């Protein structure tokens, strides 16, 4: 059933793909940055500080997406005992962690000129900080336990605890009064962001997604090499 996951075949892909993903990432990132930093207009109210948004929002989206994927893979992998899913989750986590911090830091830099404060303990920002902590716990759990089975079990529990936080982050701005503004980009209703700003935002999101894919492939490749070195030809 899981023949597809045979490390040797996957290894052929993961050892070659990063090169191409890297090239694609650089191309998309340069287009995105040109659009975001030079071609896109300034905002009528925040003027040029709107450009921070082109890093902040994609980073936040990607980090939420990665945590959800990690949780999904961990739970399915735990129920059906698919060890490979653990390796995928483990390799996804570092870039998610980096982007969660990116979102917080860029948000802070944007907050100072816009709100007048670096930090506010409102629901959105606090729940985002909790996500950073969950990523950190997850990464530490993967390191502490030498035994992969044990690490898999405990990290699955960490993701189950952490996933409750994801809808809280998403809807905190609608459920409670927060300093953070509600979402501007909506899939099911009209977005309150002008198209000239939405397009660079989407390009930057694609670039960040490619960056995550790149880091993931490299991490996953390392995991496969570790398995090879143990002399096992399958998981």
């Amino acid at each position, binding site marked *: 059933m899981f023949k597809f996951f045979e490390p040797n075949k996957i290894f052929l892909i993961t050892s070659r793909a990063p090169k191409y993903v890297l090239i694609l990432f650089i191309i998309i990132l340069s287009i995105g940055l040109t659009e975001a930093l030079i071609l896109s*207009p*300034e*905002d*009528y*109210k*925040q003027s040029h500080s*709107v450009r921070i*948004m082109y890093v902040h929002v994609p980073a936040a989206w990607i980090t939420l997406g990665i945590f959800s994927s990690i949780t999904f893979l961990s*739970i399915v992998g*735990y*129920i*059906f*005992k698919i060890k490979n899913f653990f390796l995928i989750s483990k390799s996804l986590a570092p870039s998610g962690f980096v982007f969660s911090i990116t979102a917080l830091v860029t948000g802070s830099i944007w907050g100072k*000129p*816009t*709100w*007048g*404060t670096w930090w*506010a*303990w*409102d*629901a959105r920002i606090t729940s985002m900080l909790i996500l950073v902590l969950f990523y950190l716990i997850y990464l530490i759990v993967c390191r502490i336990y030498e035994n992969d089975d044990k690490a898999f079990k405990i990290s699955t*529990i960490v993701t*189950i*605890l952490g*996933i*409750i936080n994801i809808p*809280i982050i998403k809807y905190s701005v609608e459920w*409670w*009064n*927060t*300093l953070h*503004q*509600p*979402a*501007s980009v909506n899939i099911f209703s009209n977005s*309150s*962001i*002008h198209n*000239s*700003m939405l397009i660079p935002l989407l390009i930057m999101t694609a670039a960040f997604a490619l960056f995550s894919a790149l880091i993931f492939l490299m991490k996953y490749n390392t995991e496969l090499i570790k398995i090879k070195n143990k002399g096992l030809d399958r998981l």
Partner: protein
Amino acid sequence: MYGRKVKLRFFFVLLILITLILSIYLILKSLEDNVVYFQSPSEIKVLAEIGKKKIRVGGMVKNNSILIEAKSIKFVITDFKNEINVTYSGAVPNLFTEGKGVVAEGFLKDKNFFLATKILAKHDENYMPPEVKAALEEK
């Protein structure tokens, strides 16, 4: 079909998730007053008593209400139902203007007067270039 162990693990995860969601929901529900970052003028109006603790009031800066005096700035926060008068001395953020969102941190003197120690501008979710804004206003 799937083995008994698989089913057991499935229900194990499902039960943990349901239990967690319910408990987090209960905790957040009971802490609602503390989770909100600021209160609206209408919520201030129905307060049972005026505490000595620092609170935050948020809403829109009422049009034509900003009054700049020698040492202080006065304005009115409104949520279009109720209003509260705010006095503040200090620098305001760049985005603080009439008709836009604001959060004031400070102390209530009574239900109509608020002495702010800090002013934060609240940004809304609208992003557009200045030309589009100008075109919208012409309509």
